[in-house]
């Protein structure tokens, strides 16, 4: 029978034996919290202007107590130390003989180690957090929201600590000595994310239609507290930055961490009870787990080697197979040598080598030879709900998009969030066409074999709620009808540019609109904004693919507005305004737009006259000859008729009608634009003047 207070005594004894860990934790929190704050404050007091001081001190206070990255790093390290140190007696026969022979139950010993592990983190953290808050208060830095967030951070860090502690404890239970435990902890913490990253690398390496948008849900961490906490940090920081409530983010992460921690602690305890004590100083505690763990590590390692050697050998199959074999054998030998603590045992259990060679080889073949038909995916029309076509043309990279917070987003992202094409047959026809043509892209998109390639990122939303993303490629010369069908889809048009949504409309009257084709730039009267935008929208909706095929944009509309950033810190000295800027191409077929521009006397195709040109310099990149400078007025006139402005290429529907062999630099006389002005141009296909060719 143990005495009444034996548990407390056990707790105390356990704490005494972990003194150095406790000291390490306490000293670390002391430096990371109050000392860092004091250093930051003293620096701010020295170097910050009076008017910004209060705000900067608040920002500094927040950075120390809320989501402090040093605390996060320390949390991971502390959790690992606490778990390993707490259960380190399991590594020593001397200690196990002593601890297991005394009248203390397994449950009590486990509880004592666990409670101390939690206390040694929580107690110094909370004490130094409170001290830090008090110090900040003495400087007049008080903010209830930040203090609340500091305690929220404390709570979530504690849960994170608990989850990492539990994972490390599992590693301790599964292994028998410190080096293997450390390796095991690293493996357990990183395995999920590591395997996912490997799979995504394989998707991207082997599948031509793979789109990184598929990654987002796939990369979501379910089992690794480390991955989970990193994504939480990101979400939390974004929520704080955008001044939206962080609590849903916190609650979601907290719930996930609590579930993980409970499950892992239960597993730890069961393993603790089942762990054979004779495992101390061996590599692995459970014989049955040895092969399973080894094989689970061997498969991804083999595939990593496979990818590496395939890439190093210029994508050769031989290189891949060599990598696969090398990875399997090397990984097997290393693990086996660790298991047996004997290099001579490296080739024991050859059966595993064979099994893994078959499994990893099969996985490699599935990817390499697309056995599952990934690149030829055609959605089942009956299961398809809607889709998005983020075509890379006609407006290429020049379009800009903003989210609700006026943060820039990519065109793909914007369209995936907004475009819902319900013409299923159109979506399936695109998929079918791309699947038929995919084999033509064995040398890659944009190669000389495929000069008329058009590409799009597709999102297929299925009835089961899942979204499938694919990059598709097809020949636009051969598929004009399909492209015209896409262009005829109103939903496609209305969500292709940020022209039809409420964010754009909200600031419509604020835009300063200019028309430019690089040769001329004209600012429009603000009163024409609504009319011009309406006209442009109509032209855009009416635009067919045929209208823009083989046609460069004549110029573009620039729409620029400065709006107030409601989230900016007024006292921080930071800019409280947001600049938003759009460019919309104007094609010759845009009659309504042209008509409105004409009202301001703007001819969209207007060029400078030969008299305005000082000189033209032509660079020949094919022959690498010396640049030719042309000053002859007639030759300049001929050149002006033969060139396009480089900026128009960005709005090109397709890229077959301009010549890339020459750069044409047109220098405008200073009197034209009150200063020196150069226009970067290229020759249109088939329009290179003879005198240029001869030279």
């Amino acid at each position, binding site marked *: *029978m143990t005495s009444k207070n034996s548990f407390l*005594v056990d707790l105390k004894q356990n704490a*005494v034996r972990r003194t150095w860990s406790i000291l390490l934790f306490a000293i670390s929190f002391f430096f990371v919290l109050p000392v860092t704050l004091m250093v930051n404050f003293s620096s701010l007091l020295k170097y910050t202007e009076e008017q910004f001081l209060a705000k900067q001190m608040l920002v500094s206070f927040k950075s120390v107590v809320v989501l402090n990255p040093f605390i996060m790093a320390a949390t991971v390290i502390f959790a690992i130390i606490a778990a390993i140190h707490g259960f380190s007696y399991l590594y020593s026969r*001397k200690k196990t003989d002593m601890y297991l*022979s*005394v*009248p203390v139950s397994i449950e009590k010993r486990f509880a004592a180690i666990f409670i101390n592990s939690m206390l040694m983190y929580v107690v110094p953290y909370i004490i130094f957090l409170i001290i830090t808050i008090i110090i900040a208060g003495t400087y007049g830095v008080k903010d209830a929201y930040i203090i609340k967030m500091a305690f929220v951070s404390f709570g979530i860090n504690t849960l994170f600590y608990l989850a990492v502690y539990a994972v490390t404890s599992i590693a301790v239970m599964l292994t028998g000595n410190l080096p293997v435990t450390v390796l095991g902890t690293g493996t357990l913490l990183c395995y999920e994310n590591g395997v996912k990253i490997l799979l995504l690398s394989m998707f991207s390496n082997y599948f031509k239609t793979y789109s990184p948008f598929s990654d987002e849900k796939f990369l979501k961490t379910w089992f690794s507290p480390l991955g989970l906490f990193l994504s939480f940090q990101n979400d939390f920081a974004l929520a704080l930055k955008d001044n939206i409530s962080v609590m849903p983010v916190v609650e979601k992460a907290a719930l996930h961490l609590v579930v993980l921690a409970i499950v892992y602690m239960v597993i730890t305890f069961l393993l603790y009870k089942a762990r*054979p*004590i*004779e495992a101390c100083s061996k590599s692995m505690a459970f014989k049955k787990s040895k092969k399973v763990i080894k094989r689970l590590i061997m498969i991804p390692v083999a595939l990593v080697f496979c990818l590496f050697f395939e890439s190093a050998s210029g994508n050769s199959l031989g290189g891949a197979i060599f990598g696969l074999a090398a990875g399997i054998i090397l990984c097997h030998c290393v693990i086996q040598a660790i298991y047996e603590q004997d290099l001579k045992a490296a080739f024991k259990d050859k059966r595993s080598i064979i099994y893994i060679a078959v499994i990893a080889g099969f996985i490699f073949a599935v990817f390499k030879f697309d056995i599952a038909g990934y690149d030829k995916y055609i959605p089942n029309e009956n299961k398809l709900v809607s889709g998005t076509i983020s075509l890379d043309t006609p407006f290429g990279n020049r379009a800009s998009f903003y989210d609700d917070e006026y943060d820039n987003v990519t065109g793909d992202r914007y369209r995936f969030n907004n475009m819902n094409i319900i013409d299923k047959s159109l979506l399936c026809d695109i998929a079918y066409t791309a699947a038929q043509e995919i084999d033509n892209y064995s040398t890659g998109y944009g190669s000389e074999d495929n000069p008329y390639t058009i590409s799009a990122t597709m999102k297929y939303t299925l009835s089961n709620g899942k979204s499938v993303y694919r990059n598709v490629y097809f020949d636009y010369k051969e598929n004009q009808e399909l492209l015209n069908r896409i262009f005829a889809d109103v939903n496609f048009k209305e969500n292709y540019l940020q022209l039809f949504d409420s964010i754009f409309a909200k600031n419509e009257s604020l835009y300063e609109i200019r028309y430019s084709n690089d040769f001329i730039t004209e600012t429009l009267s603000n009163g024409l904004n609504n009319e011009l935008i309406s006209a442009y929208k109509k032209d855009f909706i009416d635009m067919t693919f045929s209208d823009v095929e083989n046609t460069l944009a004549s110029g573009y509309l620039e729409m620029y507005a400065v709006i107030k950033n409601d989230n900016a810190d007024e006292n921080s000295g930071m800019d409280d305004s947001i600049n938003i800027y759009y460019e919309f191409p104007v094609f010759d077929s845009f009659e309504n737009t042209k008509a409105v521009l004409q009202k301001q006397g703007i001819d969209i195709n207007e060029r400078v006259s030969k008299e305005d040109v000082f000189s033209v310099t032509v660079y020949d990149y094919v022959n690498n000859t010396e640049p030719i400078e042309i000053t002859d007025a007639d030759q300049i006139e001929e050149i002006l008729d033969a060139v396009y402005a480089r900026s128009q290429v960005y709005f090109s529907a397709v890229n077959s009608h301009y010549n890339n062999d020459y750069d044409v630099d047109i220098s405008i006389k200073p009197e034209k634009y009150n200063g020196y002005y150069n226009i970067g141009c290229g020759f249109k296909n088939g329009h290179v003047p003879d005198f240029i060719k001869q030279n």
Partner: protein
Amino acid sequence: MIELNGLNKSFDGIKAVDNISVTIKEGSVFGLIGTNGAGKSTVMRLMTGILRPDSGSVLIDGEKVYNNVSSKSKFFFISDDQYFFATANAKDMERYYSSLYPNFDKGAFYDYLIRFGLDAGRKINTFSKGMKRQLILLLGICANTKYLICDETFDGLDPVIRQGIKSIFASEIEKRQLTPIIASHNLRELEDICDHVGLLHKGGVLLSKDIEEMKCSILKIQCVFKNDNEREKAEKNLTILKDDVRGSLHTYTVRGTHEEVERLFTSLETIFFEVLPLSLEEIFISETEVAGYDIKKLIFG
């Protein structure tokens, strides 16, 4: 009473304990001897519930021991390489053990420390090996448990200390029926301490007997017979375990009481006879040789 019933334990396929069944009675000193690798420590660790047996059971006063706090509170285990907390002194260890064993006799412990010349405040990691063994023995004795299980604890203790510990054992056995269980690879170490000895070899028990019983029932006789008839008569009436002849001097190791042997030889015509007591070592040699083992190789190398 500690009962080991059909105990088996293997490590990585190697049988360390092979179907051992031993009963250890209360109030006696039980010695477990065997060569290195015979399985003594494994038996001790099974007995104390550190290891879980593959099969068989260990019962202490009728209760299983593995993962049973109640059973574990009845013994104090001293391993062959005892662990003390880093930087701890004797006082720290007393605090720890007294929190676990409610009957721990602190007064006696500090008295013993003085008697054995051990400094309660000195760090244990500065103690010699022998001092550490004395300390853990004193802690074990003062824990006031019913059983004191010692794995090779006496090996290497100097004779004065051994005598001191032995007398403490004697007084504790008398006072509270303490049952020390001592494992050793050296029979001579146990000879003057144990009442009962079990011999372990290759994971199994070769024999388990009371030392007094063995001493009383096995005798060595040296004699010179007047003639062969007398010799034949003697050999016919004796249970001879071992027979050695050098010239006309016969040396017999026989089973039987001193009185029976005296009576027999008095009735025979002998030139000379003498009944000699056997050392424990000799008794073991004889007993195990009967069982077909060369004990000299087993225990004395």
